[in-house]
């Protein structure tokens, strides 16, 4: 632990600052930077349509990445759709499935733990179709439980849209049991895995989820690339959302036809450089092993919690967090006042509602600070965090907050 073996791979960490904002976006290892660079510097060709060498190589890398992603989440390659981000993927499901299949009176189950990107697309579907949104009652700790899920599940349930890991509380949803129950009612389940994919093994076959989305930039990969997994039987049947180059089979003035999934869902030129960078990110994670990542994060998290628990004058909202996320406030200090103190000390945290206002409402707070831990974080980072928390408490108390 003294010598974090991974920290050196992250060139961003050179100015003595410590980074506790992985839940917003992760740092990138050198290998990811180089994969992106390789595309721009050496290839710079479009895919699927070229015959010259750079185009052929690029196409191969692009489709190989699809296989790498599929292997990583235990899907088939034709179930892997490239998107801009988690947000784009979840919206796509709300369009290709939600707006097409739902009707007045149907029910959509969500939770107050949802990120806005998992909740708002379904609020839109509800508004447009007349379907009803139902919230799973969170338990005292703020968790989604199977018991509470059962209470809202019924014959009218058509869609269940839930986060796998909450980006504020860090809890792991018992999603596998929920999916099994939902399927008994012929409801489909859409899993927001944006905060799960970098922390725990995500196995879509084992979960049996219908759709699952995540982003590259939170899992050591580039911005501008996300993955939407969809069960092939669903993808096969559903219409595309976007229309354009490369996704069609035949275009005519009157009617046109589409390629097979996943290609019919990828219109126009996709974020090629970011796709290639995503492969490097997955390779990096696989080389370490997701279990080892989880263990490291858990250790550092425990170490942090043990010390933060000792500090009076702060409130921690998620002591049971399972993925290295710590959400807290300094008592009586608005989070945006507090965060400036941390920024001055070069401790990168995030303050605000974290695009998850419903859980802030549930907690009865306007906003909070969040420290999120990942592989490049060390005990020493935590010591700095803890020390800064202490100083901040003192500073703001003296100011009279």
């Amino acid at each position, binding site marked *: 632990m003294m010598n974090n073996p991974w920290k050196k791979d992250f060139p961003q960490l050179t100015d003595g600052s410590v980074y506790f904002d992985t839940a917003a976006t992760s740092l990138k290892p050198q290998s990811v930077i180089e994969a992106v660079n390789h595309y721009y510097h050496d290839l710079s060709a479009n895919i699927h349509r070229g015959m010259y060498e750079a185009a052929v190589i690029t196409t191969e890398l692009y489709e190989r990445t699809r296989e790498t992603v599929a292997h990583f989440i235990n899907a088939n390659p034709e179930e892997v759709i490239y998107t801009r981000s988690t947000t784009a993927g979840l919206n796509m499901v709300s369009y290709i499935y939600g707006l097409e299949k739902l009707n007045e009176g149907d029910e959509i189950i969500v939770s107050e733990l949802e990120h806005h990107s998992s909740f708002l697309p379904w609020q839109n579907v509800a508004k447009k179709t007349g379907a009803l949104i139902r919230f799973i009652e969170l338990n005292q700790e703020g968790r989604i439980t199977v018991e509470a899920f059962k209470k809202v599940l019924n014959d009218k349930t058509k869609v269940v849209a839930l986060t796998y890991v909450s980006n504020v509380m860090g809890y792991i949803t018992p999603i596998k049991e929920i999916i099994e129950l939902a399927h008994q009612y012929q409801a489909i389940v859409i899993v927001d895995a944006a905060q799960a994919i970098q922390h725990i093994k995500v196995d879509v076959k084992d979960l049996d989820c219908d759709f699952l989305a995540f982003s590259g930039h939170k899992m050591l990969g580039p911005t501008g690339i996300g993955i939407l997994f969809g069960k092939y039987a669903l993808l096969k049947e559903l219409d595309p959302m976007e229309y354009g180059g490369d996704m069609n089979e035949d275009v005519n003035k009157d009617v046109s036809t589409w390629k097979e999934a996943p290609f019919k869902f990828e219109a126009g030129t996709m974020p090629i450089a970011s796709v290639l960078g995503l492969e490097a990110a997955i390779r990096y994670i696989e080389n370490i092993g997701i279990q080892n990542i989880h263990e490291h994060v858990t250790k550092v998290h425990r170490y942090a919690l043990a010390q933060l628990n000792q500090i009076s004058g702060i409130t921690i909202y998620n002591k049971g967090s399972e993925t290295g996320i710590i959400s807290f406030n300094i008592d009586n200090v*608005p*989070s*945006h*006042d507090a965060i*400036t*103190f941390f*920024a*001055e000390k070069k401790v990168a945290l995030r*303050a*605000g*509602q974290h695009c998850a*206002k419903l859980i*802030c409402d549930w907690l009865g707070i*306007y*906003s909070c600070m969040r420290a999120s831990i990942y592989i490049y974080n060390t005990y020493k980072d935590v010591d700095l965090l803890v020390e800064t928390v202490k100083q901040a408490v003192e*500073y703001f108390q003296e*100011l*009279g*907050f």
Partner: protein
Amino acid sequence: MTGLDNLYREIIMEHYKNPRNKGLVENQDYRLFRIKNPSCGDDITIQTLVVDGIIKDCRHIGHGCSISMASASVLTELMIGKSVEEAEKIADNYLNMVANKEYDENIDLEEAEVFSGVRQFPARIKCASIAWVAFKDTLK
């Protein structure tokens, strides 16, 4: 920590703890404008009564960080009694000052001058601006 001390000046803390002109009134003659900044959870409403081109009353309500709350309080105190024209000039000048843009040092910002420390904290410019932007909208 000199930078931070520039931000959290005594006057600011004083206004934060004892906000002036807080709470709205029920009166249709007042013009009202509300701004929310969802990423930080700021939510500020400014209410202004203009009679014969003079700001007779200015009130605020909301929640947010100390900078946004204090700047709302300072704003209301400063604006009451000013002409609309003067008020707009002052508001523009204040907004330029906190955004670290060029501004006219001859225009007297009175107590609002204490927010000049915000310039060193680009991420907090919004906090210091939100009430003033809302105020300007009440004059439109």
